[in-house]
């Protein structure tokens, strides 16, 4: 049982290392510099 317990946890840790995180970044146009507010003049 101890072996199964260690193997279970090890499998999870391995998965966290190798799994990619699917990004849902906004489309390029939404983050283009021209879409950002004008900087306030000093």
């Amino acid at each position: 049982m101890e072996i199964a317990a260690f193997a279970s946890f090890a499998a999870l840790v391995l998965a966290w290392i190798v799994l990619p995180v699917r990004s849902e970044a906004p489309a390029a146009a939404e983050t283009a510099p021209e879409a950002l507010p004008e900087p306030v003049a000093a």
Partner: protein
Amino acid sequence: MDLDTGNTAWILVSAALVMLMTPALGFFYAGLVGKRNALSTLLHSFFVLCLVSVQFVLWGYTLAFGPSQGGLIGGLDWAGLAGVGPEPNPDYAPGVPHLAYMAFQMMFAVITPALITGAFAERVSFKAFILFTLLWSTVVYAPIAHWVWGVGGWLRVFGAIDFAGGTVVHISSGVSALVAALVIGRRLARTEPHDATMTVLGAGLLWFGWFGFNAGSALAANGLAANAFVVTNTAAAMGALTWLTVSWIHRGRPSALGAALGAVAGLVAITPAAGFVTVPASIVIGLGAGTVCYLATLLRPRLRIDDALDVWAVHGIGGTWGAAATGLFASVAVNGAGVNGLFAGNPDLLVKQLIAIGATWLYAGVMTAVIVKIIQLTVGLRVREDDEVLGLDRSQHGEIAYQHD
């Protein structure tokens, strides 16, 4: 009989911990519904706490734990708590006031029908909900509690084991949720969880209260309670880690709601096993819970049954896995008063567990269908369509959870 003050203190504190679980469940569920139903969903749990607290002292306790009538239900000898006082009842909890044991059991009776409310959220009328809770607590919960925990109950005599309510609480509520959702029908439109932070908070409070649920079920402040405490924490953690990982593999991202739901799945699965299995076994039980309960949530839409908050997937399937796992992993090395399971050389226990699971599925499912049909044919089950669109907070209660819509 002398009182054991340490054990009495532990049972009273545990009863208070389990009490907290019902409003915690309200937060857990309220975060998962749309913002126009948040308050009504919270109220469902809070109202069950009040309703069943009175029902249980009047007739629920005696039906569940009173002198057995053929192993099926308790007699009415203790109606209104007649004869249930400060003296211990050695049949149930030696050294602990009978009233303290009753209070502990009352909190279990409270949270079980509250679990079902997640299945018919966002569309049930308040009247139907009240009637359902009262009938279900009397006709479904009390008999099953008697079968499993009552002295002379047929499943207890048969030799099936359930430390803290895998069959009594989780399978019964999970299966009933599925049946109730089937009869009541689907929501007009599915809503997105309106506040995941509320759900994670609720899951955390449920986890906290579950220490009373499971470790309190040792009915003494002893080593068995400590074992139940640690396996409860471990299975909850593994359930959360596993659900998060499986959903990450499936959907591409680690989900906060997934971690919360997984923790509850782990807690559900360890409940029947908490006083019978070792800590390493609880890791495997939590792993199984996070996996099978997540997979069950994927199955539910294919069944085309709108169990709104996945009560069946988490409690019905999680409870079934936990009860079966008890038959696999139970060991007398943990609890000398228990029995060995399959992996300790005793396949008989697994067979008995499967029979207990089947009996609970069948009885809870059939009786819930009857109850819901009776309500449908009398006061009706659902709110009007325009009330459902408006949201139950306004249409049923004339209140709102948030000022800004």
